[in-house]
């Protein structure tokens, strides 16, 4: 390193990468070496500011970075090589894009003179990742490298967060150029909104205070806006006394133990939350995007309500559902603006109407939609999650999941009182998310209890990351609800395809206890309800990575459920579902849908 006449430090591209990471406050990166990133790995070797976590597959690196980002609020950082390194990362990048998770992924590339030559381990990384990143860069000038890296972090974390790829050819990593520090000047074209429009805020508050059947519907945007936004949300919701429901992504921003909480909404949401969505007269949507898992049948979606929609991304507004009062802004600012405007109006609310509304909600709650029949000889999956929740309440717990029935049961039966505690693949629905995400979470929270609530099928997609956990002494707990089926696939085949279980049975499963031992982790199995509690307690106190094989009922279905193509007020509830109901519930048209 040396300084040139301008005073800017001269260093190699690889040194610039490390310097930029350090200036961005990066402590941990998740990666896998290869030919095209060797110069950067060589620099990593010679420093101790940034700790590198060696994963077992690049998809795992991105999910780990996502878990890290979601549990800390920081940008997750990934380092992978060219070609297969980059293509393996694509699933993780798409996952981060769909769930708006800030990730910077540095990919190696073949030397600039070989680009386009079908060189060894070459792929068109920026071309491949263009639709699955928020933005991406191919750096062909070493003097631009520092600026691009800083911009990548800015883009990843600003506005609606997302993944950003920086593709760096190997010759650029060797070349010497000038380093520029973090600039405070405004970006030339990407300046996301912060404050919401005051007139829209006033209009929204007017709607809110005159509502007779109001409902808050919040999402991951509140969590992305930082812990302060969740605090503000609590203040606003408590001030109003209105009921609140959240999407899968939004769990934890409002405490699930609170009496105003209706549970999650959507396809496997609660009866009370979905009926409240359908019947409300003012819907206050904050940081959620009217996804198809939420709305169900669009032409029957909350037909009588006026809708307020707060989102930092204008393209989310009026995309699926027409809203009456759009507010473009960062939840962290807009919720405070709403509180201020509410206080300024010092409103007198229609107490009678609200009491009636709560009465109605209570009758929905009385249906006890999450009820299931316990069995004495078989562990019901719902029961397993209930016990897991009960026995971890005194711990500092973080939950990740895979994708499928177990994920929905976790959302229904594990309750979150704080944001950033729940890491799940919502938008993309990526099986295999949970283990690497848990690795990322545990890396950031060494002394916390990090549990991946898993299914036996999903977990095999990224099982190799248990090896990463063992290497870095990360005592993650993989709690597998093992029903020997791809449960959600099996459930849909039962409901939609006449019980023809085409390729959804997990044949030739490994012995998960022995598998754990093979990885030098700890394996625990529970097969009977009576032994479940002791086994969970043993898992919690084991200071090593654990694979917990929880053998559960094979036929359990995840209810309640809004059948495909149906409205919120037409839910299938667990107890009263017969084969006949299922036949009737799903129309021929509904069967076509996802």
């Amino acid at each position, binding site marked *: 390193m040396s300084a040139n006449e301008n005073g800017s430090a001269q260093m190699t591209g690889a040194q610039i990468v490390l310097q930029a990471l350090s200036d961005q406050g990066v402590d941990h990166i998740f990666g896998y070496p290869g030919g095209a990133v060797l110069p950067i790995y060589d620099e990593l070797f010679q420093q101790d500011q940034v700790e590198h976590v060696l994963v077992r597959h690049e998809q795992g690196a991105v999910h780990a970075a996502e878990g890290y980002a979601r549990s800390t609020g920081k940008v997750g950082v990934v380092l992978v090589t060219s070609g297969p390194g980059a293509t393996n990362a694509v699933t993780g990048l798409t996952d981060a894009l769909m769930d708006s998770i800030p990730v910077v992924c540095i990919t190696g590339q073949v030397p600039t003179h070989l680009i386009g030559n079908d060189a060894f381990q070459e792929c068109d990384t920026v071309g491949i990742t*263009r639709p699955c990143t*928020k933005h991406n860069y191919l750096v062909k000038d070493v003097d631009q490298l520092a600026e691009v890296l800083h911009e990548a972090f800015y883009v990843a974390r600003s506005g609606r967060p997302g993944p950003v790829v920086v593709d760096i050819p190997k010759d650029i990593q060797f070349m010497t150029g000038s380093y520029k520090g973090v600039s405070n000047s405004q970006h030339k074209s990407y300046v996301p909104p912060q404050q919401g429009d005051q007139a829209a805020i006033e209009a929204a508050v007017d709607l809110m205070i005159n509502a007779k059947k109001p409902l808050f519907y919040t999402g991951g945007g509140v969590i992305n806006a930082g812990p302060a936004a969740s605090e503000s949300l609590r203040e606003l919701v408590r001030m109003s006394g209105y009921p609140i429901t959240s999407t899968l992504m939004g769990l934890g921003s409002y405490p699930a133990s609170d009496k105003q909480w209706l549970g999650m909404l959507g396809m496997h949401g609660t009866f009370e939350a979905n009926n409240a969505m359908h019947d409300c007269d003012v819907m206050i949507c904050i940081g959620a995007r009217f996804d198809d898992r939420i709305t169900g049948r669009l*032409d029957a979606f909350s037909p009588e309500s006026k809708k307020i929609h707060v989102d930092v991304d204008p*393209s989310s507004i009026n995309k699926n559902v027409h809203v009456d009062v759009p507010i473009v802004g960062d939840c962290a600012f807009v919720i405070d603006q709403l509180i201020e405007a509410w206080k300024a109006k010092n409103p007198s609310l229609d107490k009678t109407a609200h009491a009636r509304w709560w009465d109605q909600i209570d009758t929905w709650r009385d249906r006890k939609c999450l009820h299931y029949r316990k069995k004495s000889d078989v562990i019901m999956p719902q029961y397993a999650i209930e016990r897991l929740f009960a026995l971890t309440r005194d711990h500092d717990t973080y939950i990740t999941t895979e994708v499928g029935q177990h994920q929905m049961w976790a959302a229904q039966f594990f309750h979150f009182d704080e944001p950033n505690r729940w890491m799940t693949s919502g938008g993309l629905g990526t099986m295999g998310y949970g283990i690497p995400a848990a690795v990322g979470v545990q890396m950031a929270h060494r002394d916390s209890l990090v549990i991946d609530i898993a299914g036996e099928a999903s977990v095999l997609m990224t099982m190799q990351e248990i090896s990463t956990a063992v290497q870095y002494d990360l005592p993650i707990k993989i709690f597998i609800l093992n029903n020997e089926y791809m449960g959600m696939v099996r459930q849909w085949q039962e409901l939609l395809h006449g019980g023809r279980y085409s390729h959804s049975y997990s044949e030739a499963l490994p012995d998960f206890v022995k598998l754990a031992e093979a990885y030098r982790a700890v394996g625990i199995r529970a097969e009977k309800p009576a032994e479940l509690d002791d086994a969970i307690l043993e898992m919690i106190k084991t200071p090593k990575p654990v694979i917990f094989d929880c053998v559960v009922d094979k036929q359990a279905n995840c209810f309640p459920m809004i059948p*495909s193509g149906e409205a919120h007020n037409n839910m299938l509830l667990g107890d009263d579902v017969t084969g006949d109901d299922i036949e009737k519930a799903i129309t021929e048209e509904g069967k076509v849908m996802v």
Partner: protein
Amino acid sequence: MGQPGSAYSLEKPEEALEAHTISVLVDNEPGVLARVIGLFSGRGYNIESLTVSETEHEAHLSRITVVTTGTPMVIEQIKHQLDRLVPVHSVIDLTVAGETIERELALVKVAGVGEKRVEALRLAEAFRAQVIDASLEHFVFQITGRQSKIEQFVVLMAPLGLIEVCRTGVAAIGRGPERM
């Protein structure tokens, strides 16, 4: 209802499609056009016409003019989706921004002899098309104007020996002294 189709409403609502001309100011950097086009194909939007060129050399800014069709809700989506691309500076819907001028240039090759050849030339004059290449058996006409004029000219040339057409796509700018 104003609700668009989704996975949950198979019947597409019978909403009229509108054509809009959208002007997008972008950084002229590698891949920027791919980002814009990828957005359209990836999200299933239509491109009726597309023109792009660097228009401000010092600032390295290019102007992309897209003619697209969609329901009003889709048109709004397109604009917001374009606007959130990092290298996009501004997105203007010229169709709603006020009076705009739209022009296109086409090169039209017509081959023929005798009466047809004379008729082609006569029509070209009426349309103020210029002859930019000719031999004893062909003309290449250059014609500028609104899309409808070019469409009409091409239709008229068809029976007179039309060989091929090359069109630039629409360039558009707002009337009056203001910048977009």
